[in-house]
């Protein structure tokens, strides 16, 4: 796919971002992530590495898939990963509040082929973030 934007294409994009089936995102202005909901947080943060369908990716190393990932079965695990990170993955505690962490974990645990019924509560997150 060629990605060069001509002014004409750009003008079209500015009118309708749907041309690329990608909504023009609202960017955070607070110095933290401003997105309140799990879906927006996934699309604007997690997707950067874990990709649009949670499928992960491979290069010299890899980003693990979140799609149909049995590790998500233990709900404290994704809460810990989002909070503190692991290996090369940064933690997001400084950029997300506990409600946002709960929302994005719940979103991932109920999408991409994951069907976990036990929701993560803010209290569950607080037990990990301790704030």
């Amino acid at each position, binding site marked *: 796919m060629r*990605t060069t934007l001509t*002014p004409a294409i750009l003008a079209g994009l500015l009118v309708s971002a749907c041309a*690329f089936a*990608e909504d023009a*995102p609202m*960017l955070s202005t607070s110095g933290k992530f401003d997105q309140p909901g799990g879906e927006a947080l996934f699309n604007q943060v997690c997707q950067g590495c874990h990709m649009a369908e949670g499928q992960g990716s491979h290069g010299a190393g890899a*980003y693990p898939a979140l799609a149909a990932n049995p590790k998500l079965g233990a709900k404290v695990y994704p809460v810990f990963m989002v909070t503190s990170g692991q290996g090369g993955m940064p933690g997001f505690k400084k950029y997300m509040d506990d409600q946002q962490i709960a929302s994005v974990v719940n979103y991932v645990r109920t999408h991409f082929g994951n069907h976990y019924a036990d929701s993560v509560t803010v209290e569950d997150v607080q037990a990990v973030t301790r704030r």
Partner: protein
Amino acid sequence: MQEKAMVVSRRKVLNWIGVTAGAAAMYQAMSSLGFAAESNYQRDFALSGAPKGTRVLILGAGLAGMTAAYELRKAGYQVKVLEFNAKPGGRCWTLRGGDRFTELGGATQHCEFDKGLYLNPGPWRIPYHHHAVLDYCHKFGVALEPFIQVNYNAMVHSTKAFDGKPQRYREVQADFQGHVAELLSKAVNQHGLDQALTREDRERLLEVMRKWGALDANNAYKKSLETSMRRGFAVDDGGGLMPEAVPSEPIDCKALLDSNLWQSIASGQEYEFQSSIFQPVGGMDMIAQAFQKQVNDLIHYNAKVTRIQQNDQGVTVTYQNSDGSGGAQQEQADWCVCTLPLSILGQLPVDVSAPMMSAIRAVPYESSIKVGLQFKRRFWEQDEHIYGGISYTDTPISKISYPSTDYGKQGKGVLLGAYIWGPNAYEFTAMSPQMRVQKAVEYGTQVHGQYPAEFENGIAVGWHRVPWTNGCYGLWTPETRQQHYKNLCQIDGRIVLAGEHASYIPAWMEGAILSSQDAIKRLHTHIIASAKAA
């Protein structure tokens, strides 16, 4: 300065001093994180006397790996390098017209810049005190030119101040300095500093403030020829019968303080951004290419490392072709210098001690974005007289940097249209490359209204999507350094690590090279000692 001794009458002065203390505190914090540490460089680095036939396998052909390859071969070792990419350099990288970049997730961008125009997605400047980088540049004949960091005629922009109209750096700089000098003079004259300073010192301070801030005889900062000599004129001096100079009106003190624009002024005063700063002529990868000329015959490209084993006899590294073709292959050596980013190394099965493995797994990789934009003409020079340097904006693109080369050239130009850290960097990474470029154009238009008419094409690199690094650089904290840094840098059996992640100058090429020199120096000493003991 003993800020506590200052009994200052005016809240604004206190506020300002607080800001100053904040900047100093920030600098201290950055020092403790390693950002401001000076390169501890030994000129004429050289090793010699390798035990005959000793083999060293180097993983990664970035600057750390190629430094090790160059120096170890000179010392007499049998050296081989495995590199994931089809070319050397790692993060020392330049994108030019005709280049193609496929990021993680599969999106491919074709760089459509005109000949001679480029983007450095990674490192883009070399401070004068990064001695190791500069020495290799000099040794290998890499042509350097000044990198303009501070440009007094560039813009500082806040969406929340001056109706979103960008201000000139020189106006904000001169007016902030002038207003602060005036406020401090008032504090002196209202006896606010009587306890902190003697009468003679107070008089000296008033005199210095008049010079430093371009104040008038009454210690006031106001419209005058003197203040315009700092902030620029409404009408410049000319020759012959051209109009005489007209002074310009300073920005109101309160409006300036409220704007927060002055916060951008401190950046260029930091040690690593002070003049002189350099860039290689033609793109940062000229450094990678210069190293390549020295060690290309040692490098096996397109080799993806999948396993690192060691025992008391030697090191065995398993790899496959980077495109997945072919089967597992192996390379054996007596010793190994591993420069793979920790974000990659931490995912591999590696035979190292538990403390080193913990260290490898303790360092997250930072997010960062750069967007290069090509325009039909160099309007920033032609319309706005901005030659190189950086404009600052509170929009998500954070900075716009103008090329520090080819001034006045007719035809197209490429500028750095976004350089982003923090939450917005993650958000840009999560966009398609096209959307990143679109957003950079959209926000940049607030600083330069010429954007929509002049924009042609762009290319965007989000470092978490770069297949050979999975992130920008290793993000240490004082706590993780305390717990893990030494364990990371120790020789572990027959393996030693090197790279910017194994340095106190993270994210800089200097850190990669110094780390490599230190690692191979220790390894060489260890090898000689082992050979004698055997």
